């Protein structure tokens, strides 16, 4: 038999620190995010006797929360659904409703003792006001159904549409719902109603939505006096980065994305996001990356809060050390990660790329640039070592490059982004780059023709030349009288000549 304690808070608050705090009472703490506000669920099966029974346990929790100025409604029941429903609705639906039931014992807890201040524990945001009493209800084991009957249908955590429909039909209480034929419910109100109902009364098992602490890596800092000087902000960031790095190291993870948020006394908060090439937990590196970005930011006013977070992380990759290293320190590709991070951080992710060969006849389509640092989505980021030698991509590239070895000299190192239209046809001197070039020698033609399925999009030389489109070209390598070499082609569709590449 399970026993679940549900804690609901009178005012919306940051629930995660509270969940972490509640772990001192039970190892399994969950967060139920159903509206109106998030509440905590504690599995207290087998732990209540340590605190003098269920009542003793709940009293202890409520007293300590009251000391932190939280006003709480609590309920203990056999199922998550029942505990949640009783905690939320047995008061709201007329104070007497819960007490009239003989199965529900109700006590009112007043906080007489002054609040004890202790550092590092969550505190209620509404400050030193008059304390409201917290209360709790215990539903004895096996008495779930009688406790639920007088509650409104919303106590079943129903979707809003279903609850509204039930209300419109005059079904306000769970006992009215119970009277309806069970078989009729799913076709009329959807499958959720019966599911929630069965879960609340314990016919269906419901797993606790467990809270897992430590998967969030974030550190915040509010200086006593808002910071106006850049050095001071950077010093603060360095402090936060070392805290973050400590957290990451402890979890054996490295940041793949880094977010920094500066809240200023004036203007909108500034947010900076940095993507990383390899997961890292090295504080100095993180600070360097942020410093490069902050250099270029205009900060509207003194900074009153700095927050540093690593929303995406990946396991740190161990780096084997060589026991006997002789002579030259071996350069390894993965050691480039730091450089890639730095460059991408300042120049943009799309400005630092690797090359991927594509099997395509059209020269400008024969390769593709792939950013080394990818824009990763928050959470669930998977880090793939990008410069991995054994990847399929690499195999393909190697195969391609072998083929390229034989054709390389036919390709120029400089390819014009848009082919340059040559006004005069061959064999007249060609005018380009401000000089007349007399052709002394040619090699070719090399015919490059792409498939009809590419369509007829765009013609060369027009302002908006579409790359994708069928091409039919005869390429020639030409050598001028001065020994310079160029790559020109004749468009077979209209016979015009273009300069496409320069053998630099």
């Amino acid at each position, binding site marked *: 038999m399970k026993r679940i304690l549900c804690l609901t808070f009178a005012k919306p608050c940051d629930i995660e620190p509270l969940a972490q705090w509640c772990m001192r009472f039970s190892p399994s703490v969950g967060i139920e995010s159903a509206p109106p506000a998030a509440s905590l669920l504690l599995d207290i099966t087998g732990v209540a006797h340590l605190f003098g029974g269920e009542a003793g346990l709940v009293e202890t929790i409520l007293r300590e929360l009251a000391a932190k100025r939280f006003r709480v409604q609590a309920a203990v029941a056999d199922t998550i659904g029942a505990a949640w429903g009783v905690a939320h609705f047995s008061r709201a639906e007329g104070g007497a409703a819960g007490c009239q039931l003989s199965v529900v014992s109700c006590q009112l807890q007043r906080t007489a003792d002054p609040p004890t201040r202790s550092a590092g524990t969550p505190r209620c945001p509404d400050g030193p006001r008059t304390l409201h009493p917290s209360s709790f209800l215990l539903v004895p084991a096996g008495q779930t159904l009688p406790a639920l009957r007088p509650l409104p249908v919303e106590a079943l955590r129903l979707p809003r549409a279903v609850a509204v429909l039930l209300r419109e039909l005059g079904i306000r209480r769970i006992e009215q719902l119970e009277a309806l034929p069970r078989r009729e419910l799913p076709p009329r109100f959807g499958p959720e109603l019966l599911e929630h109902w069965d879960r609340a009364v314990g016919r269906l098992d419901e797993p606790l939505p467990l809270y897992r602490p430590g998967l969030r890596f974030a550190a915040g800092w509010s200086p006593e006096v808002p910071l106006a000087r850049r050095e001071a902000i950077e010093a603060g960031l360095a402090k936060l980065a070392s805290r973050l790095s400590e957290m990451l190291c402890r979890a054996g993870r490295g940041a793949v994305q880094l977010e920094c948020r500066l809240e200023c006394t004036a203007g909108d908060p500034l947010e900076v996001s940095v993507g990383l090439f390899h997961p890292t937990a090295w504080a100095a590196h993180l600070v360097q990356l942020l410093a490069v970005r902050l250099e270029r930011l205009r900060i509207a006013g003194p900074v009153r809060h700095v927050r540093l977070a690593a929303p995406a992380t990946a396991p740190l990759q161990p780096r084997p050390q060589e026991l006997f290293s002789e*002579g*030259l*320190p*071996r*350069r*390894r*590709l993965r*050691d*480039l990660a730091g*450089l890639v991070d*730095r*460059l991408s951080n*300042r*120049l943009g992710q799309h*400005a*630092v*790329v*690797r*090359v*991927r*060969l594509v099997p395509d006849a059209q*020269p400008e389509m024969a*390769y593709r640039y792939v950013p*080394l640092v990818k824009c990763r989505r928050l959470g669930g980021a998977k880090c793939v070592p990008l*410069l991995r*030698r054994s990847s399929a991509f*690499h195999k393909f*590239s*190697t195969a391609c*490059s072998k083929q*390229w*070895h*034989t*054709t*390389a*000299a*036919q*390709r*120029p*190192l*400089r*390819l014009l*982004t848009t082919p340059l239209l040559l006004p005069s046809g061959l064999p007249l001197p060609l005018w380009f*780059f401000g000089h007349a070039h007399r052709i002394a*020698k*040619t*090699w*070719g*033609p090399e*015919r490059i023709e792409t498939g009809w399925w590419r369509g007829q999009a765009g013609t060369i030389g027009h302002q908006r030349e579409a790359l994708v489109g069928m091409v039919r070209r005869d390429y020639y*390598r030409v*050598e001028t*009288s001065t*020994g*310079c*070499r*160029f790559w020109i082609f004749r468009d077979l569709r209209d016979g015009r000549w273009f300069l496409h590449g*320069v*053998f*630099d």
Partner: protein
Amino acid sequence: MISQTQSVRIEALRQEIARLERGWRPRKAQATSSGCRTLDAILPEGGFRGGTLVEWLADGDGTGVATLAFAAACRACRSGGGLIVVDQNREFYPPAAIGLGIEPAQLIVVHPQNKADHDWALDQSLRWAAVAAVVAWPDAQGGTLAGRTFRRLQLAAEEGGGLGLLIRPATARSLPSWADVRLLVEPLRDPRPSSLVPASLVPGAPSHHGRRQRWQGLLLRCRGISAGLSCILEIDDETHPVLDLR
């Protein structure tokens, strides 16, 4: 008439000058082949030494100077490490470089937006120890390489230990240089007659018209030896795109 003791002394002094001129060098850096046997023969250490800058000067377009620079970069990358190409013009064509023997996995292309970013990226890349070589066109888009920046790049290369290959126009010849080696390259015309029949369209098919490309290389400056030496550089596409495989 110079006596034997005098000639020994002169030789010792010459070596002393060469030693002084060599200045500080990364101790562990070794010279890598320039990719061209004739050039290696006149370079004092038989190639380009890591941690230095090499300037390739050529007049005009289509001279093939970048081909030579990439051949040297390819040799420098053999020991592992990355090759960074800083390409502000966005006209670099990677398949051609891969064809010259560069490993695609080792190649990283950087596209800076402006001159300041370009110089910064170049500096950072040279400074990074895992980078074997950096190729850049520092005078791209009408800018010039300022003396101060040049000195910074040289210091960065010394720190990182990689080879910096700067491709510049011949007009930069009159400007001061911090490069270890400065080479002026001029293409030479192929003396053989033009191919009257179209060359083979099938890649790799044997052809009796070897696509040889030759350059006249003039060593404008090189630490440790007197300048003014010249050599003929040659590439034969048909046998192998990489020059003079040893």
